[in-house]
């Protein structure tokens, strides 16, 4: 876990920066981005294991970020966070293709737990 590198994306920058700070307190490396375009830029330059993205953002939605990541960096796990119970029907199936989903507000512990879960998902043999 300690070796993981997280990227958190939300247009509510206040939220992600605070999360990054709290994760760092817990010794987890994390970075914050306020929109999808910046985030993808960051991913292309650095190395990330897990991207946590808000579903509904200006410029690029969480879904679009996820789709781009899936094409360019299939190894990166994606966790979507949302304040909404769902998005519209067309993106419903896409949401289900994310590695994890968290409803806002969530505790830091549940985020860490979810990240751990998705990271180890790939390790498990498929049934």
């Amino acid at each position, binding site marked *: 876990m300690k070796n993981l590198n997280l990227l958190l994306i939300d247009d509510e920058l206040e939220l992600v920066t605070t999360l990054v700070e709290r994760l760092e307190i817990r010794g987890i490396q994390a970075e914050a981005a306020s929109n999808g375009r910046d985030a993808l830029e960051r991913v292309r330059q650095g190395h990330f294991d897990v991207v946590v993205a808000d579903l509904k953002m200006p410029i690029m939605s969480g879904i679009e970020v996820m789709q781009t990541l899936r094409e360019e960096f299939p190894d990166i796990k994606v966790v979507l966070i949302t304040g909404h119970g769902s998005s519209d029907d067309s993106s419903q199936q896409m949401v289900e293709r994310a590695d994890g989903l968290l*409803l806002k*507000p969530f505790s830091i512990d549940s985020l860490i737990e979810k990240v751990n879960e998705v990271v180890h998902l790939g390790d498990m043999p498929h049934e």
Partner: protein
Amino acid sequence: MNGAESNGIPNGEMTTSTPGLQRESTRYRKLWRYSVLLTSIVALMPLIVMMGVNNLQYRRTTQSEMRYDLSRMVSDTKRSLEFVIRERVSALQLVISDNNTSDLRDDEALARVLKHLKASFGGFVDLGLIDDDGLQRHYVGPYNLKGTNYSEEVWFHEVMLRGVNVSNVFLGHRHFPHFVISVKRELESGQFVILRGTIDMEMLTYQIAIRNRQGADDAFVVDHDGILQTQSQSHGDLLDPCSLPVPPFSPEIEVIDQPHNGGHLLVGYSYIEQSPFILMAVRTYDDHFTDWLRAHSDLIGFFVGSVILIIIVVFWSSSFLVRQIRASDERRAKMLHNIEYTNKMATIGRLAASVAHEINNPLAIINEKAGLLKDLAEHAEDHPYRDKSIASVDSIIQSVERCSAVTHRLLGFTRRMEPGHEMIDLRILLQEVVGFLGKEAAHRNIEIQYHFPDDLPTVECDRGWLQQIFLNLVNNAFGAVERGGQIALSVERQNHAYVAVRVRDSGSGISEENLQHIFEPFFSTKGQFGTGLGLSITYGLVQKLGGEIKVESREGEGSTFVVLIPIKAVATME
């Protein structure tokens, strides 16, 4: 969604309101009355008109028949009367012109003449010969009238003037009704002699009687002054004024309508030539309606039968029609209500979701900021208010959790995840659900009854959703019943497409007013103990499964929630 009708579940509880219903029934009663009135008029009018026309025709026919009979009777009788009078006038004229006056001035000869007249013509009572001074010189007959002076009598002057006179009827010396025929002969000497014969009125009365077998109710003779010359049955006695007016002169036979004593009389009359007599024949015709009824009993029977039949059919068809209209109105109202309700729920759902969403973002920030504060405080071990800060932050985080519990439930109400498709035996599922609450049931001594049929189809559905739906309903039922109460769960196949699950409790029931809002979010009767979201979430889930949820409840008698679940999973709906 499926209409309530198609599933056979009444949901009147949601639509009823008493004053509205009363107004409605008045409207339908009015409609019924209009329908009855209109169809009755349309159906009965031709029949009534037909009967009226028939009656009118009958009246016309009988009247014209009556007129004809009357006029024929009058005509016949007139001819007879005129003949009787003319015959006697002629006989007297023959007697006076054929004999020498001197011959007649002999009582014996006169008696012989009277005898011959009696034998040949009849009706003659006596004969007298009167000189132009008015003195009756000779007389033969039953009375002693020889020497009577008639010079002051009207008839005497009349016969002097005209040569012939037929008198009115009078009783005279003889005290029985008779009239007198007088004829004059001018002698060569320039003097006059008058032969005067008295005729028994019986001659005329008999003629009237034999000719009036059926033509008239009453036939009689009056003179020009309206004095009855023969006995009338109903218009006066002999020589009294007749109760009918004297008809106007006409040379023809006339039949007139004569109002009399509030009724109508048909009066046929004719003036009798060479006499002061008017023959009148009277017939009442006010009972022709009874005659008509008698003559057309079969037609009237048919009419009455038809009227009764028509009225029965009109009543029945109007009731049927109005019932149909009412049923269709109610169906439409129910449908509109359902649509409205669904729209309302969808709007509330969208509103709730967007509010929840807007709140969740700032809540997340509060949560993280508070979390950060806590992290910092935990690391700053020498901070003087460390413990107090941590406690405060914990309290903030707990409040955030409470808020998010509400927003997450709200979002659950409009949750759009795809339901899973599993074949589920509802009997097992319901027992599992009750199992979650088994301890509470035992603790509160609540009896749970199951009414499960043996042959029940499995439903293709999402297990989690069904569990949530029935957990909510059973939980509500637990909330509704007192200690020692009863909860009954029953499952049955509703029709080919649905299975109905009923959750009945013996609780206090739900008021009609509350029933209308029971599925709306934040509507709770539990005060501070309920969020008012349970039933709205249940409603949303059932809708998304393509099913229906209804509630039947009466205050004091408990409530029954009915959930219809499609046997085959349907495509998720908006």
